């Protein structure tokens, strides 16, 4: 497995070549959201909207009503926090095909609380007509466009940029409402999303060596949330279910799983790894994942608590896990 760079930038340019009605909208974050190559290749289809997200979102609704497909690019926070009413009334209510790409989700930005989208899934999930997708690797990023574009209504994508690992085979595209099963096991069922999947993949082989069998599913569709694979995986868990997400534990993946569990009458123990109802601050991704217990070690600790045991695994052993590339060599995310 390896790290790739500017995956979305290259992919969008290739993908949009024969789609003249696809327009890229930018709010002064063109390189930061990797639409610079699109801008250079198709300047007529690149629409600069300035630092004015509320207008951008309603404007996108107007374009979409007339048969265009606005691909709105900015940081995730500036989509849903800055322009929520505009999304609700100009885009989501009329069920228009506006594709919103929210970059730097959760702790992936060093920009601090103002730049960290920690409750975007929670609020966007409450909007009728909205579909929510989240990318976890380069294959997800490359194939999310087809998935999003197959829908008639609005889509919000939690997007990754910069250097991204390829965790899933390049020929296995992201499929709507279908989790990727990454390991099989009956002791614990683990659902992870976004960058947490990479962290989980560091830990699951080590846990297997310790005799814990984990059914691990990577979830990329947060809404709708009725994938039969998820329901089956919950039902099959012997000791309990763990969710792991780069988002608040209120309203995100953990909540989605809890709702499915409750509706299905499946009384399983649930541990939600994520931001524990807290804001975050500006620091490196690796530091924040450790500080806020979102990393591989946090998963191991959660498994230990669930099974009431200790494995004595060290940080060095986790870092040496061969499953995924190390990010320590990667350039830290700039703004």
């Amino acid at each position, binding site marked *: 497995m390896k790290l790739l760079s500017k995956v979305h930038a290259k992919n969008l340019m290739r993908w949009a070549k024969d789609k003249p009605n696809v327009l890229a909208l930018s709010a002064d974050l063109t390189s930061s959201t990797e639409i610079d190559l699109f801008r250079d290749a198709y300047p007529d289809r690149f*629409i*600069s*909207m*300035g630092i*004015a997200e*509320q*207008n951008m*979102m*309603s*404007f*996108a*609704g*107007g*374009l*979409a*009503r*007339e*048969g*265009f497909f*606005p691909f709105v690019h900015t940081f995730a926070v500036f989509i849903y926090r800055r322009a929520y*009413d*505009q999304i609700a*009334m*100009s885009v989501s*209510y*009329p*069920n228009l095909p506006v594709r919103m790409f929210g970059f730097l989700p959760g702790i992936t930005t060093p920009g601090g609380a103002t730049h960290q989208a920690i409750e975007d899934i929670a609020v966007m999930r409450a909007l*009728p*007509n909205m579909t929510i997708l989240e990318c976890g690797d380069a294959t997800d990023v490359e194939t999310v466009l087809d998935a999003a574009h197959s829908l*008639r*209504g609005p889509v919000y994508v939690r997007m990754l940029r910069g250097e991204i690992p390829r965790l899933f085979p390049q020929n296995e595209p992201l499929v709507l409402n279908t989790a990727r099963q990454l390991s099989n096991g009956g002791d614990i069922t683990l659902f992870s999303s976004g960058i947490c999947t990479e962290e989980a993949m560091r830990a699951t082989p080590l846990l297997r060596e310790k005799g814990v069998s984990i059914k691990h599913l990577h979830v990329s569709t947060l809404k709708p949330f009725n994938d039969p694979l998820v329901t089956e995986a919950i039902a099959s868990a012997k000791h309990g279910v763990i969710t792991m997400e780069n988002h608040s534990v209120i309203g995100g993946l953990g909540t989605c799983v809890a709702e499915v569990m409750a509706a299905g009458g499946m009384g399983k123990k649930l541990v939600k790894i994520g931001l524990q109802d807290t804001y975050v601050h500006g620091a490196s991704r690796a530091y924040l994942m450790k500080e806020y217990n979102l990393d591989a070690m946090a998963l191991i600790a959660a498994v230990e608590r669930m099974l009431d045991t200790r494995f004595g695994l060290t940080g060095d052993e986790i870092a040496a896990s061969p499953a995924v590339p190390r990010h320590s060599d990667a350039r830290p995310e700039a703004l």
Partner: protein
Amino acid sequence: MAGGKDAKELWQQDVRRIARGIRRRVAEHVLLNGGGYLSQACSSAEIFSVLYARVMNLAPVEKPLVPAPFGGVPSEKNLSYRTGGYFNGAPSAGADRFFLSPSQYSLVLYAALVETGRMAPEGLLQFNGDGSSVEMIGAEHSPGMEIMSGSLGQGISQAAGIAMARKRRGESGRVWLFMSDGEFQIGQTWEALQAMAWHNLDNMGIFIDANGYQCDGSVASVMNIEPLDRRLDAFGAAVVKVNGHDADALAEAAAQIGGGRPLAVICATCPWQGLEILKERDPRFHYVRFSSEEERLRYKQAISSAFQ
């Protein structure tokens, strides 16, 4: 404008008849329901009537339409969903499009549709009725409407997106937007104006009902928006100021669309125009509600004598 003196007199007569009809229908409705958005009709009747009777190039409707009941919100499952845009005639590349930004003016729009033969008069009886699409603060399924604009400030941005789409496709039809002066307190309005100018959307014209009042009272007492003309000019609009009750001036202002900048027509209007009794409510014009039967009877008298 085209036509000789006789033609001009004819369309102006038409505009006066429609404007009077708008005021009368809204006033009668307010009497019947014990309240409503009455001053909006008084201030904007000529703007609506000039737009519909003189300025806008809209396809006709075969006969006055009876509004369909509320047909559900847009969704994947609602396959028969449609907006209320069909009251403005079949869309085409050459046809204009009309958008109402402050949906609080919906009753005025409905009355204008009746007066211009686009909506059957009985449609107004459905106003604010349960299960009706003729809603008090109309939505995109309401007669004459096709966007969600009740959350103020969003109408201009959506209309601008539509104007850009039409321009990209080379359509000759124009986009007309009705706005209220209070909306110029909203940040999004100015975001939209700067984008309209930046993207050269000169196929869009805005008529602003500058009646000087908003929910809390006079605009000047709530939050200053002046000098509105200079602000609009600085943001890149072509600005025309007119007496909003002067049909000729309104039509001449509209004719200036397409000059390289988006057009903004500031229409100075009076919230009690055509119904003097309203003046006593100054500065609370936003929503007329009768406080007593005696007051209702006084209004009934005034309205019947105004529209004899």
